[in-house]
């Protein structure tokens, strides 16, 4: 530990804050570029939107399909039991 505690604190402040800003600035640039590329080359055309959605909805309907599945399974079980 050659430096004083104060020096270390200042170092942390300067380089830390600097890194946070530089990193997030780069992230902004990359995000802008990524969005541009995606919107340009892979636009969510209505037709495509639907196909994407049909896949992508699986998740956002989130619990839905599984719940449905569970319900269906439960109903089947139930019927099975009844018909036993």
């Amino acid at each position: 530990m050659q430096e004083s505690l104060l020096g270390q604190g200042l170092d942390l402040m300067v380089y830390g804050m600097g890194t946070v800003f530089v990193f997030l600035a780069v992230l902004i640039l990359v995000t802008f570029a990524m969005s541009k590329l995606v919107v340009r080359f892979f636009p969510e055309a209505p037709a495509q939107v639907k196909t994407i959605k049909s896949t992508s909805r699986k998740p956002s309907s989130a619990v839905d399909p599984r719940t449905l599945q569970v319900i269906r399974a439960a109903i089947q079980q139930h019927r099975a039991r009844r018909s036993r």
Partner: protein
Amino acid sequence: MNNLYNLWQSSGIAQASSGQVLMLVICLFLLFLAIRKGFEPLLLVPIGFGGLLANIPGAGMAFSATEYAIRHGDLTLLTQMATVLQLQEWSSAQDLLAALNGASFQQLESLKTLAFSAGYNNGMLYNFYNVAIASGAAPLIIFMGVGAMTDFGPLLANPKTLFLGAAAQFGIFATVLGAVALNATGLMDFTIADAAAIGIIGGADGPTAIYVASKLAPDLLGAIAVAAYSYMALVPLIQPPIMRALTNEAERKIVMTQLRHVSKLEKIVFPISLLILVALFLPDAAPLLGMFCFGNLMRECGVVQRLSDTAQNALINITTIFLGLSVGSKLEADKFLDPKTLGILVLGIVAFGIGTAAGVIMAKLMNLVSKQKINPLIGSAGVSAVPMAARVSNKLGLEADPQNFLLMHAMGPNVAGVIGSAVAAGVMIAMVTSMAT
């Protein structure tokens, strides 16, 4: 009769130290805040209860086998342990406990063997702490779950708000300086690692704070976690005065343009892009941001809904229970009742305040150079404290103009603040580790 005396001796009242009684009261107060006042109950209920368990006199649930053996062992055992620790002079178990802090890895291993040989075992909370926190696993798993719950849509629609999330991290680093300054006054004795761990409270992000504290200052972890979660719950009280003081009526009435639609593909590519940036520029932040991005990718990719659901529910809940109890184990009286805790509580709230102010000021600075005006009220959301801080921005916006809904606009800096804190955490762990050697 001997047995009756033993039973009384083993009762809590006979063994209680005043510190433990005080800690029991403090933990009951934490439970009161959590249950009655709604202070981040998901964490503070387990933490508070873990603290109660850790301070039951004589139970030693938060002690390692070594600590327990030192407190309850006979003279032969203590002498052996003192030999391992190379203590020339010692008069009481307290001397041995004090010497544990400076012991080397090999010494600790030898002591552990002695303790186990003598039939002592680790307390339950000590085991939980080791598995959940010392390994780093629990905060990272929770971060994964948080990633799986986070919608980056508002951020992707307006990436500039990342700057607000960056600015609000100023609270972290200003607090580091504050801790260093407190040290200079001679009132408290913080190392640079302590200072960094305390600063991270200003990140307003629980798992990040616990992760950093577990790496840099495990003894302060209890106080840091309690401060972080308590102040996050207090965001609706802490932030508004600062926000009002730094903005005028006209600024608070700025109406922001509606956010554009963000496509599914952008949401899938974003966590991967973020991870690649981390890989290229900031490997030290890889564990935290890596797990965060992984959780978010599971959410957005749409093909692993089972895993995403589990990460957001069963897994994060199980982890939260053990994380909370483990943090509670650090509320053990000997560790918590220290002047440093007071310093941590004071510095923590300062950190929140400075972070809030920095966010608001950054928004005003951005308005100086940018045509698309930002309502500075959303700057305060950059501290994270998701989604509390964004709701505060929204509330103050509605006060100024009942038609101006800022919630979605504030969600951008809000999640940016999570990324910013994780970046700051990575930088600090790396820098402090290299300073210490």
